[in-house]
């Protein structure tokens, strides 16, 4: 037992490296897990939008639209529907404006989309790394939370003498803290590689912001970023010197070549009207894990000839691209994606039980010692309620608002977000003014009603009988059942 000191130090570190970012991590786990189904959430939130549309038809509509509204814009970009989304978005940039203008189109008719305006799944995706904070604060906080999480994972593993044995240990006792601890351990250990990879890859994704020092050192040495050589310009040669190639033609040919199953997902046209104009087509996800393995075809818009892309390879980019692709999980088929979702849900449970454990442990100490630390207990226990039950209730409010805010209301997409903020503020206030136990019980009860009602609301307001809506109903009912169990357990046993 000569490593007792080490294990005690790691236990101490695990407690604090886990608690400090705990609430942020919980929020990131909730919204990040939802983000695995980002396009599906958008589809649920736009039940009037068409499903499974042709990328080929949509792309032709988009190009026609851009030719009409932005004939002179030097940059065009089009995001096309695929197997998971029917969204068709066009973007264009007209100097001196640096911001892109955009429009959402009906993928079948080509006119401006008439589906209700919503951020859909994008809200959860943005939240999970921007935290609804002004740029770049949310990203920095999310990065530090990821770094803390890695420290908490390492120290958490180090506290265990027998990791494998503890993995299968679940004590069903009446002892207050034991089941929580076991549940925390089981959720932590079962998906441990997933947590390590998801936190590590999060930091790799933000290398440019979080760890820019390698680039700065190289720049200081005089290795300025290489500018890609302008291709396609034929100095003094015959033939056209500006882009005359039909984007539509190149797109249509490629889309037919790639097939509907994994068609073109994105079209980028750059430097339009100049000799360096290019057309880039990106194929829909579904191939390799790595983002760098994306299938991309680039053409000169002057000659129509394909442009050979400089091979960007090397172990660093290979590993980095794999980690980025793993983090987004866009490569995954529905079954694998569901598995990722389940591991995300386990991570949510791990952070939630970890936060609860801090208060359970502290409560024992408070009752035995009777000294200071009551303020810390009060703050942590109420923040726990505001995040662990308050945030999911606020997320349920997002879906409720989606169906209750009138479809034609101006700025309705913002009102869906406001519904989240207002609901979260109310749950937080409730958490801080109510006694701890009542706070949990009442929020669990509200959560049960809020989630349990969503499938019924869906059916009453345009939901369809299909796999997507059935899947959402299953998840909503599961969350409602979990909340209901929590509320029931807290009201059955007499006051602790």
């Amino acid at each position, binding site marked *: 037992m000569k490593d007792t000191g080490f294990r*005690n130090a790691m236990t101490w570190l695990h407690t604090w490296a886990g608690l400090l970012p705990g609430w942020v991590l919980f929020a990131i786990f909730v919204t990040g897990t939802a983000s695995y189904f980002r396009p599906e959430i958008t589809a649920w939130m736009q039940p009037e939008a068409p499903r499974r549309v042709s990328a080929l038809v949509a792309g032709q509509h988009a190009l026609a639209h851009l030719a009409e509204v932005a004939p002179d814009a030097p940059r065009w970009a089009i995001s096309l529907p695929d197997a998971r989304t029917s969204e068709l978005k066009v973007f264009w940039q007209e100097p001196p404006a640096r911001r892109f203008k955009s429009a959402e189109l009906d993928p079948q008719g080509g006119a401006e989309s008439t589906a209700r305006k919503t951020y859909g799944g994008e809200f959860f995706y943005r939240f999970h790394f921007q935290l609804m904070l002004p740029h770049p604060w949310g990203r920095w906080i999310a990065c530090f939370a990821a770094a803390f999480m890695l420290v908490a994972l390492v*120290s958490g593993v180090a506290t265990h003498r027998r990791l494998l044995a503890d993995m299968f240990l679940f004590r069903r006792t009446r002892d207050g803290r034991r089941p929580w601890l076991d549940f925390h351990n089981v959720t932590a250990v079962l998906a441990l590689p997933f947590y390590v990879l998801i936190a590590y890859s999060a930091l790799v994704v933000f290398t440019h912001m979080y760890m820019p020092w390698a680039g700065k*050192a*190289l720049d200081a040495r005089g290795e300025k970023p290489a500018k890609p050589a302008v291709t396609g310009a034929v100095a003094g040669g015959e033939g056209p010197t500006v882009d005359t190639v039909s984007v539509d033609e190149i797109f249509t040919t490629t889309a037919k070549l790639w097939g509907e199953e994994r068609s073109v997902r994105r079209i980028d046209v750059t430097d339009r009207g100049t000799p360096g104009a290019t057309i880039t087509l990106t194929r829909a996800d579904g191939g390799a894990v790595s983002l760098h393995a994306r299938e991309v075809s680039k053409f000169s818009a002057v000659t129509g000839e394909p442009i050979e892309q400089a091979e960007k390879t090397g172990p660093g980019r290979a*590993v980095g691209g794999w980690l980025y692709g793993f983090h987004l999980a866009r490569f995954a088929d529905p079954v694998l994606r569901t598995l990722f979702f389940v591991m995300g849900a386990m991570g949510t449970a791990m952070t939630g039980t970890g936060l609860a454990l801090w208060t359970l442990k502290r409560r024992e100490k408070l009752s035995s010692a009777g000294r200071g630390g009551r303020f810390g207990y009060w703050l942590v226990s109420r923040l726990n309620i505001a995040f662990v039950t308050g945030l999911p209730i606020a997320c349920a409010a997002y879906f409720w608002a989606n169906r209750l805010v009138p479809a034609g209301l101006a700025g309705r997409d913002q009102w869906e977000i406001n519904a989240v903020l207002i609901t979260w503020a109310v749950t937080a206030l409730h958490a801080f003014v109510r006694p701890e136990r009542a706070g949990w019980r009442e929020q669990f009860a509200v959560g049960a009603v809020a989630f349990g009602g969503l499938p019924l609301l869906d059916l009453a307001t345009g939901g369809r009988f299909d796999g997507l809506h059935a899947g959402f109903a299953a998840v909503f009912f599961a969350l409602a059942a979990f909340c209901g169990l929590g509320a029931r357990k807290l009201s059955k046993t007499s006051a602790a």
Partner: protein
Amino acid sequence: MPTASPTPSPYSRAARARPGYRRAVASRALAATAGGYALAALCAAAVALLSGAPRDEAIALAVLPALVAQIAAAVWAFWAASATRAWLGIAAPAAVFGVIIVWIQHFAA
């Protein structure tokens, strides 16, 4: 030399009662966060310069060990027997990376 006798935890109840405990923990926390990040930054810069790879590849490669160094430093900061050792254990590898950076920037061709 490490002995076989059990090392007392630097965070035990007895340790908490000692004067200077709070300052020592604050010092470790600073070593773990600021020290750990500085070590990672120097590691990234040194590895990128050493790799001799093209810019994109060098940056992508260098961040991988840098993040490991950051987490290791943070764990070490609270593992070390004292706050002073915590700082020394981070400063030593940081100095090595610093020397590598200065060497390559100023003396290598």
